[in-house]
């Protein structure tokens, strides 16, 4: 039935049946003339800006809200269904959402796809069916775009590890690469991608057309005793990944055909304390949360969510955020934070505004230079925070 038909039915129906307040008012109104009446419309947005935070709602939420760091105002929302992953086209033209839906909410046919949205109208431009993906949400490393924006890597675990390669230009799934014992992707431009592995190595998948070579670093961490957060942070310009372990060991690695892991340092030692360890009863400042660190790439400042506690408290929210000069390996700022946030992000512009969320109802924007709270956004979302990285 067309809408016209439906409207006609309701109006005739109401007319026959009884009270017609709206229509009577409309009649009265018609006589009053209405020069100030308005027209409905739909906004368009600007291309993604470095001053924007893309903030996922809480567990089970279906949207990613965009907030401007300067004003604290909401700019718009990308539809990101439950446990989906958002990718932002480096050229700013598209938003990509890797998602999984069932045809009847929680039953029926499973559908895995990458939805493509125009970044200005937020209209759905297309859907790319994929074989499957890990349903988890909360990680930046499960759906990664290449620097040229032409390829997406989509992590799958079913429960076997693999990576789907998606051609974003042709909007087509290309093929899957098995990735046994490893998970998530670190961009590795011109090579393929790299990945953290259970044996304490980084595996590098060099993609050559329809085949690939997989090489590994030497083991450099203990995946069970002192794990590195899957939410690593990648710096496109430096081609460098920053890694953080549960005890607070910070490592960087230069990506390339051969990944080179740099010398680690202790975040506590960088703050003038003794390094934390894995023993119970030892109280120390530990990093914690789901997205426990953010890197301001232009200045090489790493911001980490820190709390006092014992080891195996790695999901606990923060009491302070620590600003670490990565080059100097020194903690140079410590700011107290409220509500035990578990996610942190920072804009990649000169403003260098931090957002933390995930503890209370507010998403909080903090000036990284002063520690001053600039905005508290009620119901601002409690999930993963993404920013645009300049190319």
């Amino acid at each position, binding site marked *: 039935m067309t809408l016209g038909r439906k409207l006609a039915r309701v109006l*005739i129906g109401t007319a026959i049946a009884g009270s017609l307040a709206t229509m009577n*008012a409309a*009649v009265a109104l018609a006589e009053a*003339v209405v020069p100030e009446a308005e027209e409905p419309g*739909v906004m368009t947005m600007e291309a993604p800006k470095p001053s924007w935070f893309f903030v996922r*709602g809480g567990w089970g939420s279906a949207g990613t809200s965009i907030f401007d760091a300067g004003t604290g105002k909401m*700019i718009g929302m990308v539809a990101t269904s439950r446990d989906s992953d958002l990718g932002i086209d480096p050229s700013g033209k598209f938003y990509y959402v890797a998602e999984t839906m069932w045809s009847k909410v929680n039953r029926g046919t499973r559908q895995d796809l990458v939805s493509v949205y125009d970044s200005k109208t937020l209209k759905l431009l297309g859907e790319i069916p994929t074989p499957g993906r890990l349903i988890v949400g909360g990680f930046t490393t499960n759906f990664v775009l290449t620097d040229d924006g032409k390829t997406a890597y989509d992590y799958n675990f079913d429960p076997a590890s693999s990576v789907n390669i998606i051609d974003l230009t042709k909007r087509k799934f290309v093929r899957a690469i098995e990735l046994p014992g490893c998970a998530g992707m670190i961009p590795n431009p011109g090579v393929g991608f790299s990945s953290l592995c259970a044996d304490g190595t980084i595996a590098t998948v060099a993609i050559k057309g329809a085949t690939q070579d997989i090489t590994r670093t030497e083991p450099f961490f203990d995946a069970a005793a002192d794990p590195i957060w899957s939410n690593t942070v990648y710096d496109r310009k430096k081609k460098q990944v920053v890694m953080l372990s549960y005890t607070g060991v910070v490592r960087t690695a230069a990506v390339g055909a051969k990944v080179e892991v740099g010398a680690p340092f202790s975040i506590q030692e960088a703050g003038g304390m003794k390094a934390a360890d894995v023993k119970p009863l030892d109280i120390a400042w530990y990093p914690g949360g789901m997205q426990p660190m953010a890197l301001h790439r232009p200045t090489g400042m790493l911001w980490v969510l820190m709390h006092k506690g014992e080891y195996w408290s790695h999901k606990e929210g923060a009491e302070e955020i620590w600003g670490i000069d990565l080059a100097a390996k020194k903690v140079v700022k410590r700011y107290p934070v409220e509500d035990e946030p578990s996610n942190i992000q920072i804009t990649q512009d000169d403003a260098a505004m931090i957002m933390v969320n995930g503890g209370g109802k507010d998403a909080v924007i903090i000036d990284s230079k002063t520690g001053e709270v600039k905005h508290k956004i009620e119901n601002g979302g409690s999930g993963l925070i993404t920013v645009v990285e300049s190319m």
Partner: protein
Amino acid sequence: MKRFNPDAMGEKLLRRLAGGTSRRGILSRLGLALVAAPVFPLLPVSRAEAAKPDRSPEAKTMFARTAQTKDDTKCNYWRYCAIDGALCTCCGGGIHTCPAGAEPSPVSWVGSCINPDDGKAYMIAYRDCCGKPACGQCGCDNTDRETQLYLPQLNNNVIWCFGTSSMEYHCSTAMMIGAA
């Protein structure tokens, strides 16, 4: 009591109530429907016009007495006297504009709100923006003259996303239709 005079209803007004500008099919049927309508007791929303309106403080609802005209991102903005939902003005949209990617419903529920600046009542169409997940910002639930399901045009619980490609609710706008 005022009598019903369909000839006095301009097409422009009908269009505003019914939504888009290219729905001539709706409009002609709407006209027919109204021609067929008998006379009914006038309801509060139209009484303002029917009789000389009482705009004294004593006649104003609590909402009207405390409403403001400066900030349309607050629940007490004057037009929101019967809104229920997230304000689109807080979601990247405007007072009568949907945020990017949302679709304005061609139909709406209505309210009659008093502008404190001129003391006059205006008819407001609350038009939902649809097809995106709930915005979640600036949730308001004002209830001046808000009724139940049998008077749906004056009920604000219904998700007014009819005729849109998706009925998912994102946020609500408050479009001014004209003097009430």
